[in-house]
Every structure is written in structure tokens, then in C-alpha cells.
């Protein structure tokens, strides 16, 4: 399980997501970390050791896309899978066009998550 040693970070202000998603990721064989905000992620995470980022779009403070910008500014190329509770097709297209590996609309299935992470890791 840990042989793949792929580290996935989850940044979401919703507690239930931070609670449930890392568990599933671990079941899927990833190493998972959870952060409640973009600011917390930037401050606490070992940015260099993260292979993929699952990022909520709408958050208090810095938003998901803003965090993505910030990482680019720091020349960190961590592939991003956006998740959102009320995205639409237009938003999804825009985020993909701006370099997101995938964009999942909540609720998403295990399979969709797996495919998105696969794409993200290929991306990276």
C-alpha cells in the first residue's frame, strides 16, 4: 500500500470532507493529508513532498484557484484536482483550460476520484 508512496493533500473548509476523503484515499492506497484552508496548507504542508492536490474551489480566505496561482508563482508544479459542491460545466471547462488535471463536482464517486487522481499523477 505504501509502496506507491504517493502523497495526496486535501484542502477543504468542509470538515466532513476533511474527515472522509483522506480515509478513502488511504483505502485507495495513497498517503493523505488534510488542511482546512489554503493558508493553512501553505504554512503547514511540506510542499515539495506532495504529488497531488485535491482542492476545494470556494473557501473563506484564499480560494482554490488562488492557491493554484500561488503555487505556480512559487514555481511548484503540483497537479490539482478541483472539487466543488456547486460547479457547472462552464466553470469546469475554464478550470481545465487553466491547467487543472480534473474537476469533480460533489458528490463524486470513488471511480471518478480514482480516474481524476490517475490523470493528475500522469499530468505531474
Amino acid at each position: 500500500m505504501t509502496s506507491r508512496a504517493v502523497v495526496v493533500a486535501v484542502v477543504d473548509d468542509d470538515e466532513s470532507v476533511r474527515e472522509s476523503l483522506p480515509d478513502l484515499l488511504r483505502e485507495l492506497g495513497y498517503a493523505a493529508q488534510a488542511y482546512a484552508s489554503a493558508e493553512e496548507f501553505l504554512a503547514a504542508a511540506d510542499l515539495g513532498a506532495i504529488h497531488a492536490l485535491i482542492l476545494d474551489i470556494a473557501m473563506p480566505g484564499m480560494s482554490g484557484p488562488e492557491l493554484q496561482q500561488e503555487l505556480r508563482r512559487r514555481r511548484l508544479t503540483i497537479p490539482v484536482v478541483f472539487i466543488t459542491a456547486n460547479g457547472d460545466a462552464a466553470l469546469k471547462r475554464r478550470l481545465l483550460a487553466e491547467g487543472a488535471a480534473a474537476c469533480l463536482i460533489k458528490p463524486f464517486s470513488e471511480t471518478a476520484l480514482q480516474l481524476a487522481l490517475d490523470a493528475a499523477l500522469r499530468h505531474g
Partner: protein
Amino acid sequence: MSESRPPVAEDRAVDEVGRLQRCLRDLLSILALPAMWSGREATHLGHTLLDVLVALLPLDVAAVRLVDGEGGEPLEMVRIGAAQRGAIPSEQITMMLGGEPMELPAAAPLEGMELFLAPFPLGLHGEVGHLVVGARRPGFPDADERLLLNVAANQAAIGLREARLLHEQRRVASELDARVARRTAELAAANEELRRSEAFLAEGQQLTTTGSFAWRVATGEITWSDQLYRMFEFDRSKPVTLTDIGSRVHPDDLPLLYHMLTRAEAEASGFEYEHRLLMPDQSVKHLHLVAHARRTRDGALEYIGAVQDVTERRRSEEALGRLQSELAHMARITSLGALTASIAHEVNQPLSGIVTNASTSLRMLAADPPNVEGALETARRTIRDAKRASDVITRLRALFNRKAVTSEPVDLNEAAREVVALSAAEMQRGRVTLRAEYDETLPAILGDRVQLQQVMLNLLRNAVDAVSGIEDRTRLVVLRTGRDEAGNVRLSVEDSGPGLDPDSVPRLFEAFYSTKTGGMGIGLSVSRTIIEGHGGRLWAAPNEGHGATFAFAIPLHPARAVSKYRGDGGSLPTVNTAATQEPRP
């Protein structure tokens, strides 16, 4: 023959003849009197009588007292004979005449000499007056004089009676004239009043576009007011028939007309109905007709009624109805649109947890060995998230499952908390900080909870939109509940946005006015309607610092008479229930 007569007797005979001739002449003069006074007043008659008597007879004094028959003061006139003129003061004569003339002594001492007096009643018992004559010669009056005076008195009595009659006739005639004049004036005034009433009526009919009619059923005779002719666009000069009316009535309404006519002819009861006219230019008029039955004096059935042109009212009602349903529809759509994001977020968030936890749980159970403890934990989380989703759906159902407008006790704090909970996601997404300050002592108000929540949601959304452009300071929205000086319950939403353009404030509450490119401008207008429906008021005011405050106040016991007002002239609307309070929280 005369030769044979003795000279003395002859002289006496000559004297006698002369006397008789004189007497006859005097009699003729006296008998001519009525011709002189005919048709004249009693006074004139009295004077003429005295003048003639003094001229004819050797009288020293002549006087009459005339009674007017109506209990008035008697008229007294006196003549002094030519020989005594200046010697006898007429006042003394008048004094002598006072009392009862018929009981005068035959002779009375006057200025040292005796005056012989003779009274004559005018009328059988002096009911018209008295004539008194006097002379200073013993034996006055002699037989001839008495005869002449009697005839004169008799003539005078007749004349005076005639004069009195004439006077009475004249009086009656003039009274009659006065009465006729008075009645004529009254009639003229009444006519003027009637003419004015008719003018008022005609004016009123024109103003209210109401015409009136009378319809005699038996003869088919129809009388119309001018306004009714105008309404039907008929020639005023021609009498109207039922056939004429039928030619104007909208073909679809003809059965209605016939039904009404049949009923009216049979029942003699009032009727009221609405029908349309199809005018020659194909335009349609809506008429409202009310009539009541009455019996004329000869027992004939007659209908008196009024017809009002309600075309404008119908059109307005139709337009209003269309507008209202459009408004309601748009309000629903905008509310739905506004909520779609919140719903998505609020429901999808727990759903996401459910799916993720369920997947995890399955995986843990399928592992070898199964991670039962982990599976139980994630299953528990699944249930918790499902409950959370269910709560959200319950709240949404309450918001959308609209019954008719209800009036129930509403805890404004609780209602606001729910709205805040529903808006939380939107706030987060817009990185808006919402501070809610609830006055926990707030009493419940009577109202429609869901409607009030729609207003709050609208105000919060506007506030979020207002602060969305802020980059240099906190995007702060403050929701407050509390009471004002008048005891009204109030809720305000204060934002720190760019504030209000003073020019736009009056238009804020107009339907379809929007400062937002994406908005439909329906929210504030509908919100105000809702708050007014609760007897309260909704207003907007700029803040002293940044931004604007939108607030509403609702009375605890709403007066039913909610005054209508519009945001005009930039002034804050005032309404009976919350007139004295400051617009700022």
C-alpha cells in the same frame, strides 16, 4: 188762473217752487256724488262729501268719521263753513265728534254762540261711520236740509261700502299677486336648483363615465341620459329602442342581454350584470349595468338604472393580473435562482460525504482482514451526513413548499438564523464575513414566515453582491435584529460596499430596476410588497462610512390599513406604523 190767487199766497207759492227747485238741484248734485268717488279710496270719498255739502248748504261745520271695518283707527275729516272759517278751530270740532256722535246734544255752546248740530249715521247703525253737520242758526237743520243730508249720508254709506269692498278686493288681489310672485320666485329657484342638479349629474356622469336610463316595459319607451348616448355612440336626437341597443351589444353577450330582458319583463325585480359592446370601429367596451324596478303612478312597470363604462377598469385589472402573475413568477424564479447555488452547496456537501464514507466503509469491510472498526466509524459518518442532507432538504422544503400566505407567530431571530444558514455557503464563496447580532428579547410577530425569509434572503444576497468588489478591506455584512422606539420589530442588513448612488435610491424599489447587469431588479420591489403586506416598511439608506443599510420594520400588531407609498423624491418612505424612527440601525 194765477190772477185769481191772493198775492201773498202767490208769493208763498213762488217761494215754495224756488225752494223745491233748489232742493231738487241740490238733490241732483248729491246724487251725482257717487260718479265722483266711484272707484276711489274712502278718504277721497269723505273729502268730496264734505266739500259738496259745505258748498251746497249753508253749513258752519261739517265733519265725518269713517270706520275702516278692520278695527283700525277711524279717519276724521272736518270742513268749516266759509262764514266761520278761522273762527272755529277744527280741533275743537274733532273733540266734539269724539265719543258717540248720535248722542250729541242738538245744540252746543261754541265761542260764546250756540252751534246747532245734526248727526247722520253712515250705514244703518253707523257701521261705516258718521256725518255730523252744524250751523249757528236755530232750527237747523230744516226739513229740506235734513232730506238732503239723509240722502247724502245714504249715498256716502253705499259709496264707502263699495270703497271698502274695492279696498278689500285690491288687498286680496295684491296679496294674491305677492303670493304668485313669491311662488314664481320659489319655482325659479327650484328650477335653477334642478338645472344645477342636472348639470352636476351630467358632469358626474361624464366624469365617472356613468349613464342613466329609464325603461318602461309595457310601452318599450326608453329614456337615456346624454352620457349613455355618448357611450353607445348613438345620435342624441333619436329615441333609443331595444333593437338599437342589441345592435351594439357584443354578439357573444347577446344571449345575456335577452336573458336579462326576459327576466326583467317577467319579474319586476332589479338586475345587475356586465356585458360588452362591439363598437362600429370594432373596439370593445365593458359596461356594468345596475337597474331597479319601480311602479309609476299609473302602476306601469319601469326600470331605472345606471350604466358605467368599466372598460378602463377591466383593462387595468387584466393588466394588473398579468403583471402580478408575471411578478409572482419572476419572484419565484429569482428566488429559485438565488437559492440554486446555496441548495447545491448545502445538499451536495453532505452527499459528497455520504458517497465518500460509504465507499470507504465498503472497502474496509472488503479488506482481508476486514477493518470492522473503521467501517463502523465511516458508516456512522455516512448516517450523520445523510441526516445533515435531510435537514437541509427540510429547510428548503419549508421555503419552497408555499402554501397560501399565512399569518402565524414568527420568531424573526429563528427565521433569520435559517436564512443565514442557507446563505452561509454563498457568503463563504464570496469570502464575505457575516456578523449576525440577534436581539434575544425580540417578541414574535404575526406574519408569513416564508415570505419574510425570502425578503431576508434577498437583502443578504444584495449585501453580498454589494461587497463582492471590495479588495482593500473586509467584505463585511452585518445582520441585526432589534426593536425601534415605536416598539416595532426590525431587521437590518448593513454592508460595507460602495454604498448607494443617491440618484438611484428612489428607483431601488421599482420593479425591473436593477443596478446589476445580471439581476432582474425584481427582488426589492417584491420585498417591499411583502413587508407592506405585513403592515411594515422597508427602506434603504446610505451608511455614514462605507456601504448601505437595507432594513425593514414590522409592527407587533399590524394595522390593517397599510398605506401605499412609493419611494419618490429621494425621501425615505414613512408609514403609520414606523414613522418616527431613524432609518439607520
